[in-house]
């Protein structure tokens, strides 16, 4: 487990998502990477019943990189509480359907090819919500390191290198306050939550 940075890639005007994915794939392969299968990160949100007081949201995430785990983040409005559990957690959520109702129409996922290049692992995900394309998320992981501070410069350079100068590469909001802490898989999920929430808020494609 290394440090992962998630970066949104703007889709240019009158270009499709597949075009951008192919473009980035070509660039990565030119760097000498090899494709290692596909990946998928999905998120489903459950709203608490109004009778339970203030509305809370539970986000359930699955990440193909941790196939045995289910990540859940409880958004109380003021703070986020996360729980990592094994696959049976999905069944538990079904039992709780009286108290937490699933918002099916906001099911959102990011999937696409996965590449490995030395110590880097690159994932090009096209984000879809209800089968409608929303944008492109690029995930880059540097595996030998676990503290973001030590590797952020390297990751930024790498990202800037193949995304091109048109993209502003900034440290993810979630990581800014945790630069010196040990990176764990849930940090990746928080980054996805940030981006997915942004995608849900806007209709159509997200440009910046």
């Amino acid at each position: 487990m290394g440090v992962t940075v998630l970066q949104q890639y703007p889709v240019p005007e009158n270009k499709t998502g597949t075009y951008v994915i192919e473009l980035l794939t070509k660039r990565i392969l030119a760097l000498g990477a090899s494709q290692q299968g596909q990946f998928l990160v999905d998120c489903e949100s459950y709203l608490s019943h109004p009778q339970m007081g203030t509305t809370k949201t539970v986000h359930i995430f699955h990440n193909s990189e941790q196939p045995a785990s289910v990540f859940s983040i409880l958004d109380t409005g003021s703070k986020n509480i996360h729980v990592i559990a094994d696959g049976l957690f999905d069944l538990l959520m079904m039992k709780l359907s009286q108290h937490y109702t699933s918002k099916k129409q906001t099911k959102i996922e990011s999937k696409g090819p996965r590449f490995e290049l030395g110590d880097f692992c690159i994932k090009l995900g096209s984000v879809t919500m209800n089968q409608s394309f929303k944008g492109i998320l690029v995930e880059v992981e540097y595996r030998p390191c676990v503290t973001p501070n030590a590797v952020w410069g390297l990751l930024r350079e790498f990202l800037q290198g193949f995304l091109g100068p048109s993209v502003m590469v900034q440290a993810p909001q979630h990581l800014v306050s945790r630069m010196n802490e040990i990176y764990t898989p849930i940090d990746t999920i928080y980054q996805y939550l940030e981006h997915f929430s942004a995608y849900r808020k806007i209709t159509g494609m997200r440009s910046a």
Partner: protein
Amino acid sequence: MANSVNISIEAPIENQIQEITYDGQEIYQAPLSMSENLARLAQKIDFSKTEDEFCNIKKEGESSSDSKSEDENKEPGYQSSLWPWDSVRNKLRNALTEVSVLADVLSIAKEKRYMVLDPVQPEQTESRPMVQVYGRKKALGAAAAVLLAGVERLRASETMRMTRNMPDFHIDLLRLRQNWRLKKVSNTIVGDLSYRTAGSKFSQTGVFEVTKAPEEQIAQAMNAAGPVPSALRVTVPPELQGVAFISVLCQKEQEDVVTATLSSAAINCPGTLPGDGAELHWQQKLEAAQNVLFCKELFARLAAEAVQLDASIPHMVVGNQIMATVLPGIQLLIGLCHNNGQNTNNTNPEGVKPESATGKSDHDHVLEHSLHQLLRAVHHANTHHPFPHPATGPLGPSKRRCLAGPMAADRYELLDMSKEQSLLEQIIQQAQHFFMRRRSEYVLDTIAKEVKDPLIVSHWNALNSPTQSCVKINIMAYGYDAVCRTSLVVHVGEKTLKCICRDGKVRHLSYELQELRDLIYCQIYQHQMTAVQAVGRCMGWQLLASSSHLGSGPVEPLGNASSCLLASPNGDRMLAIRCEPSVGIQVYIAQSPRKDFFTSELVQDKKWEHLGGAFKEIKLEKMEGKNFLNKMELLMACLSSPS
């Protein structure tokens, strides 16, 4: 009569047997679900019985009971097959009708206008008391005769047993019951000697039958000298009779596979257990049969694994032999030897030939024992799941796998967890380690024998695992072990050696032991160089230069030549020592002022004589001294004295 004995009682864990196939496998019925069970119990309720009683109470002679019986006759014919609850429903409905009719009748009778209830004289049954008495007497007499005959037989056999001092069948059965699983199936007593309850998943059953031994045989055995015979007779299925063991042997690979199999088939199987089958005590007999079953399970598992594993050199399974290559040129042969005991010749089904002693081939008891241990560990793991058990969720995955979800293990870790070493792989690793250990021992011993100066002492750790051991090697010279000693540690693994040298360098060596040999030789010469410097320091000599990797001279086949230069305390003599692993140690001496200094036209000044002259080699073998360091000490001592 006997003292109190603990008997454990258990409900049969099996479900009802639906069918027994020809190979003896039992097909069980699936247990009933809750609703099915309820329906089955409801079917059992005898509604007609209560109805009859009900009718008697009514005494009204309502004709409903007749019509009901007609209904009942009809019902099972076509309706019960429709729906399981149909008959119950009909009966309840009929009961309701009757109850309503009765209520109507009662309400009419209460009015006393249309209907009056009068007591009716019950019909007098013709009773003839004497007939009944005779009938009962006859019936009782018949029953008593049966009981008396039984008592007579029991008493006769008991007295006969007592008089002849024969063993009691039931006491023996009790003893058997304490150690073995028994159950009664109709008229016979059968037991199970398989390891299923201990976690085995082998399909072959281990059913045996318990019978009473015929009295003549017991009497015969009583007359003969020896232990007291048992009244029990245990019958074990023929495929479990006799003696079996797993033979494990390691041998040099032979050019021809066929010859290898032929010669290796000549594993001697010990004959039957002492004593003939019938006279053998049941405990020994059952234990032997259980051992046969265990060996068969072990071999079946190994054979299955040998076929499944894809090794670089494929494992071979021929008959009851498994062949696996351990190291290049060395084979591991695992065979199942089963001597049925019925026939000493080749006719037994396992095909083991008790051949004439072509060679008490070196059967490896340690590896055989390891194999048994490995299978028992598998059995243990099958029944002992790590705590805590989840209330929901599957039972069986390892603790690491249980934690993998909450700890967010990634796919590589999960893949790592799913890898499981088979028994065959583990035993091959143990065999590999065994060979590595033996070869390293041999190499170290031969070097210690070849090299007398310095001494090489190796200490093997007594505590080691089946796949790893460790040896510490000390290199030192006799009498100088306080001055200098070189020690290194060698970890012997499965296919590699790991050497940790004195300077902290770690070297990984392959299974080719020439590498270990070269390394030790290099260490020996390195030791000599450091030791001579240490001796020099003790003697007050000064180290001018030293190099462990000389670039000059011919190229060495192993390592590099090393050298050092020492100066005497007052600086008038110099020693140069050069050490080449292939040549040995050479010592040169130079002194100043040089004796053969003559002024020439080029070098006129007298002072140049202090530069020291040419180095002259010393013939070490001609010198006094027990070993090299001793010689060097003497040399330095005599050179230190003012000339």
